Each structure stands twice: as C-alpha cells, then as structure tokens.
C-alpha cells in the first residue's frame, strides 16, 4: 500500500473496498475473528487439556452411556436366546438389522466425503469439520457392523466369513454380494481408521507438547509416534494424506454401491434396479451431512468453536444436503418409472403396493415428506441460514433416510411373488432396543472423543490463517490489488504531468 494514497483518491479506495467485499462473498473466510497460530492451537487443544469438563458433558455422556447399556443387555439376551427375539421372519427375513446397518453405514459416508473428496476438490471449508466428521464415520461403522454380525445368529463364528485355511475345507462364496459386503465394510472401517489416525498424529504431538499432566503427556507422546514436524516428514506426510484421500474416494463410492448390490443383485421386485448404486451413494451422503449438522451445531455452541465452524460452513452443508437430497428424490422418481416401464406385473404390483394399496403406504408418504418435501425449504436463504431450521431439517432427514430403508426392505419383501407367503412385519421390543442402544453407543463414543481428542484439526486450521502464506512466492489477492493500484497512480500521474 502506498502511503498517503488513500486520501488522494477516495474513489479508488472505495473501489478496492468493493472488490474486497465481493471477494469476501465469493471466498468467505473460513476462520473468523482475529487468530494467530498460537490462539488457534490453544483454543482447540484447551478443550481437551485445560478447560474444566463442562457439566453438560457429564449429563450428555451419562444419558448416552445408560442407553448404551440397553444395547449391551439386548446383545446379551440375543446371543443367549437367538435371533427369534427379533420380529423378522419369513417372508421378511431382513428387517431392522439390515435397515439399521444401511442407515448407519450411510451416515458414515459424509465423513469420508468431507475428508477425502472435498480435499481432492480443494474445498477449504472441509478443514474445520473433517476431524469429527471422520470420527463420526468410525463410530457409525462400528454401530453398523454389529447388525449383520449379530444377524448371523452365531456371532462367535463370524470369522468364518474371512478366508483362512481350515480343517473343514470350507471357503466363502465370492460370487455373493454378501461376501462383497464383508470386504467392502471391513476395508472401509480399516481405511477410515487409518485416515483418521494419520490426520491426528500432528495434533497428538501438539497435545503432547502442551499437556501438563505427565500421564496424559505420556499417552499423547506414545500415540504421536514422536512426531516433530520436520520438513521431510511433512513432505511425505502430505503425499500420504493426499494418496489416502485419492484412494478413499473410490472406496467410499464403492462401499455403498456394494451395499446396494445386496439388494439389486437379487430378483426381488423393488430391489432389482440399476439405479440402486448411485441412488444409495447419494442417500448415504445426504444422511451423513444431516448427522454432521446434528453434531456440529451443538458442538460449536457448547465449545465456542464458532470462529472455526462458521456460519458459512453450515450454509455449505445445507447446500450439499439440498443437492444430494434432490438426487435421492430423482432416485424415488426413477424407482416408480422403472416399475412402470418394466411392464412386469410383479414390479407394477410392488409399486402400487408400496404407495397406496399395501398396508405400509404410510411409510412411503412419510418418507417423501421427510426426504422430499422438507429439504425444499433449503432453497430459501431464510431456512438455509438459520441454525434452528438446519438442525430441525437434519433430524427430519435422518428419520427420512431410516424410513427409506424401511420402505425398500419391508414393502418389497412382505408381498413377493407368491401370495400364499405374504405376511405382515412388525418389529419387537428388542428390535427397538437394539436400534436405540446403538444410538447410545454412538453418542457415548462421540462424547469420549470430544473429551479426549482435538475435535478440530489444529494443524490444518493453522494453514487457513493468512499468516501461513509464504510471501514473495505466490501473490495473495491483496498484494495483487495493491499492484494494480500502484499502476493506476502511475497512470494518473502521467495524465496530470
């Protein structure tokens, strides 16, 4: 900036302010408030290290933990008695166990989307939400994994699903989508855990260097593997992180595609459709963003993280939810179209049965209300920019996505090809307690995570600060404007003289 320039040409000054305002609108700052490397570090790590555990943490954790005991009890009863305590039976052999499995695994997808796909697309706003979104992925996958495992009826023999040489001479059938699921979900859980942990290493080193308590210091030191922020280490670290993002992207798309193969590879009317993989993936991201919003709206209030999880973040997430929600609505429309266009009597019957002739018609319309109608509010700025509405719509969408799986699974199965085998399905108390229990388990893990690990990636937020740019190499916008200004002055001077 040239000294005394502003007074000389107020018009240019105003023009520059306008440019800055436009820049702010196109690229809103991802960190608000006056922050330095030190304040960012302290603010995020103090939640773990210094600040007294807030009272609401104990309340929330307590409630979640008690509900998690419901899961423990249900599993104990289930394992000692058998899966007959659930409501699924022929012809609805898959019910709550698969509904909840698909629901939970779908929720996980948003975490990987945020951490991997948005990294590849260079979306800076992922930086402050990726850590807990990835944690959410891990915990959601842990909840998801329990359902098929327990649905086997003999979970202690679950290792039979893994290929190992055994005296029974028994091998798995790799032509089955259920076997693909084993590989997809276990790979997904492993890679998500690796990705999350690699992202944590530099922040664990920060905690190690800042912790006063020697025990915590030791634990964080052990977990950070002696990270010291060396330039050579960062170089390889960044390559590894980017490659992990690169391979997680096809992974996350494949996982829900394979989950949808469980259905679409079969012949059941309502399942056998080519739209399933993209429609399931979009639904997964839709549900996942709803869960990210459900978690981050209270989190930014309770832990005063509004500088890092800004209003802009919420608006962006709202927009992603709207976009993926519309893809899901397109999927609903295509399901109907496929049913009609197939001209197969079973498909046409299934559509009619699902929408108005069958006993579960209400679930279909509730689903359309939750997933189709509610998100239309997000077209409007007023709803998109209101935390309250975003939170409410997210809860409605989570319910809607659960109903979607209910509709797909139960309405397709309960009346299939043979009218003599038609039957009704209703969940038992233990179906509900199992589902509720996983919610408790999920939130217990979330509460522990918030207490013991940095909820926002500290080192990545540091890179968002203007101070993080090395000057003299690539110009930032302000420098460019200044140069243009100087050119203008020279021109003006030329005219005058």
């Amino acid at each position, binding site marked *: 900036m040239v000294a005394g320039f502003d007074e000389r040409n107020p018009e240019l000054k105003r023009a520059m302010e306008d440019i800055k305002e436009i820049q702010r609108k196109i690229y809103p700052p991802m960190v608000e408030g006056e922050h330095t490397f030190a304040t960012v*570090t302290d603010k995020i790590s103090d939640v773990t290290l210094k600040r007294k555990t807030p009272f609401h943490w104990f309340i929330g954790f307590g409630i979640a933990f008690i509900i998690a005991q419901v899961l423990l009890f249900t599993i104990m009863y289930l394992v000692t008695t058998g899966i007959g305590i659930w409501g699924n039976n022929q012809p609805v052999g898959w019910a709550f166990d698969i509904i909840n499995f698909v629901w939970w695994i779908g929720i996980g997808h948003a975490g990987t989307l945020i951490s991997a796909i948005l990294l590849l697309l260079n979306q800076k706003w992922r930086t402050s939400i990726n850590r807990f979104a990835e944690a959410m992925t891990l915990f959601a996958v842990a909840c998801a994994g329990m359902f098929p495992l327990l649905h086997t009826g003999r979970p202690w023999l679950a290792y039979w699903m893994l290929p190992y040489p055994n005296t029974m001479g028994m091998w798995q059938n790799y032509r089955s989508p259920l076997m693909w699921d084993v590989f997809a979900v276990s790979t997904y859980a492993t*890679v998500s855990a*690796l990705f999350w942990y690699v992202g944590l290493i530099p922040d664990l080193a920060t905690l190690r*260097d*800042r912790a006063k308590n020697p025990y915590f210091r030791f634990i964080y030191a052990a977990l950070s593997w002696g990270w*010291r*922020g060396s*330039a050579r280490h960062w170089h390889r670290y960044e390559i590894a992180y980017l490659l992990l993002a690169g391979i*997680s992207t*096809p992974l996350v798309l494949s996982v829900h595609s394979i989950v949808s193969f469980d259905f679409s590879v079969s012949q059941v009317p309502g399942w056998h459709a080519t739209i399933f993989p993209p429609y399931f993936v979009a639904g997964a991201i839709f549900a996942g963003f709803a869960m990210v919003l459900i978690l981050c709206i209270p989190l930014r209030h309770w832990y005063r993280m509004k500088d890092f999880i800004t209003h802009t973040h919420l608006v962006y997430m709202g927009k992603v939810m709207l976009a993926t929600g519309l893809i899901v609505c397109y999927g609903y429309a295509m399901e109907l179209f496929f049913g009609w266009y197939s001209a197969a009597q079973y498909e046409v019957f299934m559509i009619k049965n699902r929408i108005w002739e069958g006993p579960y018609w209400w679930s279909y319309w509730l689903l359309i209300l939750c997933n189709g109608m509610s998100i239309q509010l997000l077209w409007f700025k007023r709803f998109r920019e209101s935390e309250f509405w975003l939170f409410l719509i997210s809860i409605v969408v989570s319910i809607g996505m659960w109903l979607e799986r209910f509709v797909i699974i139960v309405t397709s199965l309960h009346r299939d090809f043979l009218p003599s085998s038609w039957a009704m399905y209703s969940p038992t108390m233990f179906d509900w307690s199992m589902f509720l229990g996983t919610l408790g388990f999920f939130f217990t893990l979330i509460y522990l995570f918030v207490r013991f690990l940095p909820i926002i990636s500290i080192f990545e937020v540091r890179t968002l600060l203007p101070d993080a740019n090395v000057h003299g190499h690539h110009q930032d916008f302000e420098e460019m404007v200044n140069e243009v200004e100087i050119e203008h002055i020279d021109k003006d001077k030329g005219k005058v003289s």
Partner: protein
Amino acid sequence: MDKKIYGLMAEFDTPTELVDAARQVRDAGYKKTDAFSPFPLHEIDEALGIRRSILPFLVFGGGVVGLLAGLGLQWFVHVWDYPLIVGGRPHFSLPAFIPPAYELTILFAAFVAVFGMLFLNGLPQPYHPVFNVERFALATREKFFLLIEAKDEIYDYEETRKFMESLNPQEVFDVEE
C-alpha cells in the same frame, strides 16, 4: 564443552522468515539440514532441496499387490481348491470377483501409504535430540525452527553459529545429543 552437540537450531516467527533462511542455508552449502514447522509448508521443499519421496510408487505397488492378492485368492478358492458351480457361472467369474479384488487393492494401498510414510520418516522415534531444546515444544504450536546438524561437512561450531545468527532468527540454540 562437556556435552556433545547434535547441531544448531534457529527459531523464527513466521514461515516467510524460515523459508528465506532455509534458502540461504542451502546456498551456503549446508546439506544436513532440517526445518520444523507447525503445519506443512510447500515452499520449504524447494528451499531446503528436499527431493520428491518415492512413497507414491510404493503405494502403487501396494495397490497392484492387493489387486493380485484379491484375484489370486478368488481364483484359488473357486478354480483350484474347491471348484463349484454357483448360479451357473464359470469357475473364474471375473465380474463377480471384481468387488473383493477392488477393495483389497484399496486396503493394501492404504496400508502402504500410512505405514510406508511412517517407515520412511523413521517413526516411531520417541527420542530425538531436537526435543532437548526447551523452546522446541513450540514447534507444534506457532514457531518455526531451522536445524544444521553437526555432521554436516562444512559445519564448524563458531562459524555456523555466526552464520545462523546472521539470518535474523529470534534465537539460536545448541542442540545437545
């Protein structure tokens, strides 16, 4: 001096200062150098003359091994060890074998990416002389450090220290072994 010196370390306040200093250190002919920052700095690679890591090739290799392992496993199970016709498909039904092979490709590549990175970085390494500098704890918070090791060919305690002080650091520390 009783204590053995591992090297000399200079502290800087901003990444720009660190990169400028690193460039001067490289131009002065020092080879055994390192920089420490609280977040990745892309400019430092060129400034310190860090060569591109071979990690991407290892990860690619991991992916190829994963793919072959996946296809090999399924071939072994369905063609060699226990050939059984399921659903009227050929013994080696490639389309159906793609999902597990695909997932194993990703799994192996991810393992190589993470553990390869840690291995090449020499981690876990609980002890390192740089931790002996008390102010170094700030390298994970806000400060930037530049290190010249005593092993360097043109290292000379007095000379190097004088040179480092000419780089405008906040302070220059002796790093004890």
